[in-house]
């Protein structure tokens, strides 16, 4: 029961009309923004859930988890589809700040999935191609900026993943993750975009942690000659 559209006594018609029109447009705009923010939050939560899920992967249930993750991803894409109508034309950039966090987290999750699947980095085109509806039509654009920001966050997950598999003894895979992380970091150093500045410190830290973990593996494995391990094959991590 709101009565804010009740005209104040004596307000001249021109002002009344002008402001009634303004009011309608402002409300439309705000409602739209609210809807977008709501979905952006849903996307963020679902993406985080997808990342947590992927961290739970083990050799035995790899297929099950990948299937689950792909399903989760489809759900997120559906959310994008749902919000797409609000983001046409100028509205895309107008409300970009509202949807941005969702995009960022989604790129992080989707690229983490690609990484788990084939150990490589997802390209922007590839992720863009996944952002399609059931008929294969592009739902929304994926900007370079969102891609870069999401990928920067991915490096944190890669670090976690790497430390995790080191703990499980998967040493070669750890070296692969390190190499990937290094490539990402080196390229980001060249790109040097101001939007990335804040994330670069974290990324450098992640790389350092991963390099140290790989170092520890090597130091340990080098202590005894390889022949030694032929008689101790229950611990031959290195190959």
């Amino acid at each position: 029961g709101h009565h804010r559209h009740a005209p104040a006594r004596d307000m001249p018609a021109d002002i009344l009309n002008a402001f009634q029109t303004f009011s309608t447009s402002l409300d439309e705009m705000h409602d739209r923004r609210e809807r977008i923010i709501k979905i952006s939050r849903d996307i963020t939560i679902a993406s985080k859930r997808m990342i947590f899920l992927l961290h739970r992967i083990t050799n035995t249930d790899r297929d099950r988890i990948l299937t689950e993750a792909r399903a989760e991803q489809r759900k997120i894409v559906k959310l994008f589809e749902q919000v797409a109508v609000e983001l046409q034309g100028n509205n895309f950039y107008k409300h970009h700040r509202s949807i941005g966090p969702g995009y960022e987290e989604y790129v992080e999750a989707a690229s983490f999935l690609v990484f788990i699947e084939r150990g490589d980095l997802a390209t922007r085109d590839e992720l863009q191609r996944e952002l399609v509806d059931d008929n294969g039509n592009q739902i929304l654009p994926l900007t370079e900026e969102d891609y870069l920001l999401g990928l920067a966050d991915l490096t944190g997950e890669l670090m976690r993943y790497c430390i995790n598999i080191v703990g499980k003894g998967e040493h070669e895979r750890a070296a692969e993750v390190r190499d990937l992380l290094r490539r990402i970091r080196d390229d980001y150093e060249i790109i040097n975009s101001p939007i990335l500045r804040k994330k670069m410190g974290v990324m450098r830290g992640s790389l350092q942690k991963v390099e140290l973990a790989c170092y520890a593996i090597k130091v340990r494995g080098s202590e005894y000659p390889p022949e030694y391990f032929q008689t101790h094959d229950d611990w031959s991590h290195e190959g």
Partner: protein
Amino acid sequence: MTDLNFFQDIQATLEHETDVRENIRTAVRELDRTCRTVAAILNKVHTVTTPTVIAEVSTTARGRFPDIHNDLKKLAALIPAEQYYRYNGMWTFVLQQACYLAAYTTYLHYERLVTVPEVEEMLGVPVSLRGDLPTFHIGIEDLLHGIVSLTGELTRLTVNCVTHGDFQRPFRIHQFIVDLHSGFQLLNLKNDTLRKRFDSIKYDIKKTEEVVYDISVRKLATKPEAGGGQPTA
């Protein structure tokens, strides 16, 4: 020999964007300068507040709007299709200033609120009431900011009118600001900046109330009958 396997096209895109921003910055600076010139012209009404002078000043100011129009056109040409809001932080302030100038000039001339078509004509840029124009436009919030600036300036004018012995105009301005305030109350403001500035209208009402009080208590003039006595231009 730089690596950048993954990011080659992105690198190019980012460099392009830097150029776009550079050009926009220059165009906005130009527009800003033009707006300041118009503001300086309008500023003269505070020194002499006779109807003649006010009419003169507003006419001179109107003659300068084609310059603003022109600068805005140049700016608009720089914005890639549908990326208005990607860059609009760069010109928001100046665009609000331009809206204010249009509203001020119009008020001085007609003593009423500028209409949307008038703004569009004076600045040569469409107002996007629904916010869905793909091209360069004036957003509602920009327009509202311009109107808030107007109330501040008119409050100042009220004070100077009294200094110059013009005791009638303050009543009219006060009523105008009260009406605008009622108008703003119809809005459901979520935007924090705008909401804060809206509070400044309350201050303007209070200030003009005090001026009207000073005139009334000294019987320098009396409150005109509502609706009557409004000058037409």
